């Protein structure tokens, strides 16, 4: 990617942001590329609980979602966000091959990994995600960028859902990350 000149470059190492310490943003970088677009790089660390790991080993597909929003500061809540991205990854274990598959429905891609940690590292990596063109923003305004990552309970099999809503072992979410910037 063309990011030789970074007008806005933020490299943040974030530790212990999650309530459960199982999900956390390790790195978030927002850059302005040469093509005058704003890009996002991030590293989300996923540690699975025993319950989730056990479900994964037993063939239950687990879906993780990373939500990226960018909106003007002090704007009415009903106004549309300038940017809204939902990155979904489905993680599942294939018993026959003994591999962990990461399916990204957005890009219709499928990756297989020998270990769960490799698969989690893959799905926690966001590279060169184009958020918005700079010319699409109001340059006089401040914008709030907000990142959230969580395990999507609604995507679990129905019988597991009630337990997932009530059990802390299934409550995998990261404290939202927020940053104000002026393009």
């Amino acid at each position, binding site marked *: 990617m063309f990011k030789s000149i970074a007008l806005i470059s933020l490299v943040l190492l974030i530790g212990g942001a999650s309530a459960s310490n199982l999900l956390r943003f390790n790195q978030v970088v927002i850059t302005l590329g040469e093509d005058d677009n704003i890009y996002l790089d991030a590293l989300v660390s996923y540690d699975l609980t025993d319950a989730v790991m056990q479900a994964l080993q037993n063939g239950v597909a687990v879906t993780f979602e990373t939500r990226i929003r960018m909106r003007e500061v002090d704007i009415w809540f009903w106004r549309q966000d300038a940017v809204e991205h939902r990155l979904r990854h489905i993680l599942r274990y*294939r*018993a*026959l091959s003994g*591999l962990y598959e990461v399916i990204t429905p957005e890009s219709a891609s499928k990756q297989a990994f020998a270990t769960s940690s490799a698969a989690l590292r893959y799905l926690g990596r966001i590279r060169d995600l184009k958020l918005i063109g700079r010319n699409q923003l109001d340059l006089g305004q401040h914008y709030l960028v907000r990142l959230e990552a969580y395990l999507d309970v609604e995507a679990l099999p129905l019988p597991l859902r*009630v337990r997932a809503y009530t059990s802390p072992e299934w409550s995998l979410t990261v404290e939202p990350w927020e940053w104000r910037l002026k393009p």
Partner: protein
Amino acid sequence: MVIDGGALGVAAQAMKAQRIGMFAVLLLVLLLLASLHMMSEAVQRSDVLDTWFIPLLLFTVTGLALLVLVVGWSLWRLLRDYRRHISGSHLNLRLVALFVGLSLAPVSVVYLYSLQFLAKGIDGWFDVQVDSAMEDALSLSKVSLDLHKRERLTLTQSLLNSQEDSSVTALMLNLSELRESSGAIEISLLDMQGKGVAVSHQNPEVLVPTPPTEHMMQQISMRKSFVSLVPTLSNQLVVRCLAPDTKSRGLILQAIYPVSESLSGLTTQVQSAYEAYRERAYLRDSIKFSFAFTLSLVLMLGLFAAFWAAFYTSRQLVKPIRDISEGTRAVAQGNYDKQLPLPAAKDELGFLVDSFNEMMRRISQARNQADASRRELQAQHKYLETVLGALSSGVMALDRLEIIQTANPAAEKILQLPIKDYQGRALKSLMENAPYLSPFVKCFDTESGGLLEEQAEVTLRRANGRQILLCQRSSLPSPDIGIVGHVLVFDDVTELVSAQRDAAWGEVARRLAHEIKNPLTPIQLAAERVRRKYLGHMSSEQADVLDRATHTIIQQVEALKMMVNEFSDYARPCRLASKPVLLDKFIREVFDLYEGSNNRIDYRPDAAGVQVELDPVRMRQVLHNLIKNAQEALSGRQGRICLSTRLVRHQTHQKAQIQLVDDGMGFDPELLDRAFEPYMTTKSKGTGLGLAIVKRIISEHGGSVYAENRADGRGAKIVVLLTVHAIIKLAG
């Protein structure tokens, strides 16, 4: 008839509110049923209502909580009514307990067995043999694929080893040949860092080799070959092999082989079945929990709907009974206008309520008629009381046992006794405090042969004089039980008799005066003429006889004249010249005439400021007569006369009393009642008109006079009572 319209309106509003509440709860139950049905559908066909499960669950739990609140509120209200002993609450509680018990027992049994069947049914999906078969199938697939992988890895290694040329360029040129001969999808040469050197792909458009993963490169770095099954986007399996060059050319040969469609399809199906089975086995408890939870929600909905229905039904059943109970209580408290609201259902309870209302209407009508009769009776009674009260005659009603029932005010006035205090007592009881009424009681007493239907005159000897009553008794016959009572009618004719007697005596006196006075003057003149003509011509002896005889005649004629004059005074009609005077002062003036003489008279005035209206001339005559009478009673005896005044209460009025007490012989008890009658005297001299004139003058003044002997038996006492004109507060 007055209908309790307000209560009926309130009852109608309450029924309307109940109906609205019933529809609201029914709607809630229907919504909950629909929600539970959709939840059940979501559990069974998760693809359709998958995302609606949690909202439906929240709605159902909220709705159930609402239903529980409604039932709890109904229970609280029922227990509150029970504690307050509100009518119908006991029966209501028993009915609710019965309905709840009847619904709880079978539902609980069905619930427990359903849970058991459900758990067993879900457990039945999983079996040790099925587990084993699934594991075996997977192992078989793995073995088959491992064999296939090993063959492909061996092939890859042999392909690399078969290239004897050490030139990389020669290897690159042979790649297409190698790919075609091995049947691979892609064959590529990589350097030891994993970067592509050359590639041959069955798709000529692919010019870049598939990059190896870190894991692959780690294994290659340890001089080990790598082989793995990799799924494609189209869910096909491919075998990916990486073989390091053993001839120190620093190359890695990567080959990607397709797995045969049959093997791929079969193994994929085995994998899918196995994974589905594993997932289901893993979710076994969750599935059980979901079904049990849904079933529990259904059970709770059913139970609480049944509880609510029990409350509602029992309330509806008990309401008419409670209304009737309250109605009977209202009747017991005298409220006959109570009308109960008719229940909607035309059943036996409705008939009962209708009959109760009809009964109440009739009772109310009867009570109104009774009230009208009672009012009429009261009016008649009041009219009769008014008539009797207006009568001057005394009327007393006795029952057949001669128990006093009632008496009019005139009776009390005549008998001077509060007869109301004697109501319910025998007629004889009047004598207990008034012995002087003995002749009156005996007159009406049938046992002692008293008066039946005739009139009789009864004389009562009171302390203050005689009282003459004219009495008549009438029996009240009844066609059924004979005599039901008696009515006594009596009049005080004392004054009338006295007046008649006075009139008769007045007439006698007038006639006597007229008949006697006329010949007296000629007798006197004749006696004086005989005396004058013949006294000088007679011998001294004869003259002496004549002188004494004529002197006697003239003296007696004078005495007769004086007596005739007194008769005239008594008979003469009186014309009073009354004026208000202070009683004490007036009597002092009369008393002063006697003061200084040896008359032994004391005066003790005690009516200061009391003013009476009297004719001074006539009242002086009264006082002179009384003093003279007392002086005559004391003639030849030791003793004194005491004249006194004071203010007394006589019956209901204040009276001015003049009392004259002497220490004489007193009145003969036999003649005491007639002391004020003309010609009633025990003295040798006198006309017997002194006290009669006193009584006449006092009567003309509207007062009364009576005589009695002193209680100590030492003389007599005469009491005059006059009407008080005013009481003046005197200075000092």
